[in-house]
């Protein structure tokens, strides 16, 4: 049975409106969190940052029942996954975080600024964080990337180069006071976030 080739993948279904007590309880429900929006570990090196924003729907209304997940390299551009054949991070930093939006549609991740990761040709990509967006009304999650407005490497990034210039800003978080970067996610509309077909 285990050698039988499946007909195809299991289709995706919406995360629905009621995931919070199971996936992002965050102290509001009895169940413990497997993951939170705080990726920082005591031993992690690198520039500590917060990335925050709000999620909006096609009417410009905030999305209060959204789940966001991020995946990123450490400050040296290495992933905490043995599939990354280069040297693994020498800290307990996992690079994965999850949070649900709050009553204002807001989200926040406390993490470190990732280092550059090579593209498929071995050229450096600008520092970025992968973001997956799940919500009621979304039958299949969406993937986007978070770049940083203070990175010179953005100009040569092969992924940003594929994005029409007038839409690039939807991928670039803006640095404010106290190492806080802000980026809003717009699921639909004129300023719609660029999502990737991966």
């Amino acid at each position, binding site marked *: 049975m285990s050698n039988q080739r499946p007909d*195809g*993948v299991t289709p995706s279904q919406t995360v629905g409106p*009621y995931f919070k*007590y*199971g996936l992002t309880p965050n102290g509001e429900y009895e169940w413990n969190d*497997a993951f939170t929006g705080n990726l920082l570990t005591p031993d992690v090196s690198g520039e500590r940052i917060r990335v925050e924003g709000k999620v909006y*729907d096609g009417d410009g209304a905030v999305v209060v029942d959204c789940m966001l997940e991020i*995946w990123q390299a450490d400050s040296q551009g290495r*992933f905490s996954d043995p599939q990354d054949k280069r040297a693994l991070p020498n800290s307990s930093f996992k690079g994965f975080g999850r949070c649900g939006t709050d009553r204002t549609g807001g989200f926040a991740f406390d993490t470190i600024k990732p280092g550059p990761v090579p593209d498929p040709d071995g050229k450096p990509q600008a520092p970025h964080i992968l973001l997956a967006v799940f919500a009621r009304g979304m039958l299949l999650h969406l993937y986007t990337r978070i770049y940083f407005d203070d990175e010179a490497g953005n100009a040569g990034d092969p992924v940003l180069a594929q994005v029409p210039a007038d839409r690039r800003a939807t991928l670039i978080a803006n640095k404010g006071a106290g190492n806080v970067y802000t980026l809003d996610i717009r699921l639909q509309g004129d300023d719609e976030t660029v999502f990737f077909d991966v």
Partner: protein
Amino acid sequence: MTLLYPLQSLAAHPARLSPNYRSTLKRSPQKPLIPIRHSLSELTGPVYGHETVREHDNDLTIQAKGEPLGERIIVHGHVRDEDGRGVPNTLVELWQANACGRYVHVVDQHPAPLDPNFTGAGRTQSDAAGYYKFITIKPGAYPWGNHQNAWRPAHIHFSVFGHSFISRLVTQMYFPGDPLFPFDPIFNAVTDEKARMRMVSSFDLENTQPEWALCYRFDIVLRGRNATPMETK
């Protein structure tokens, strides 16, 4: 092992804009998604060990002082990749309504009783062969506001990781023969019938435990193919 993630595999998924499911109207992008090549960022993913899962987190019937009401069931199966290989040590999370079709979530106002002995959340890790197992209560159908007299077929929500960030899957497991199937726009948003039936568990008499619990099998197939395709026997 290096896996490939062909975009064709995504054809099984529902269209993001599926108007019969009304909430998709304002929550699906209108501009085309931009295809990009897979770099290490896409091809790697979180690895979590046993520290994430406690010993009895896969048994939803022993989380409270007493036993929950409803029909005790075993839900088990394999997490596999597209070549049929088991996906080892991957996190499997589930959440569901109780036997009456009520979630503990504060937003759920369905006038059906909450069960003080049932939360409806669980998690486990697949073993070296990709096998996982939960013990829970069969969830009830519940009404929702999508259209007049709309009811969701009984289902269990699943969240699975796999080998990379792009093999991530959130889905729903259904029960065989549910009379609500023809009327549910979420289930039917998967337009290919064979793909749709992959979300329906099968009744597993062989692993049903006499005098104790019915068993359902739900195998989950995630994206990911070997770089060098296997010959099919």
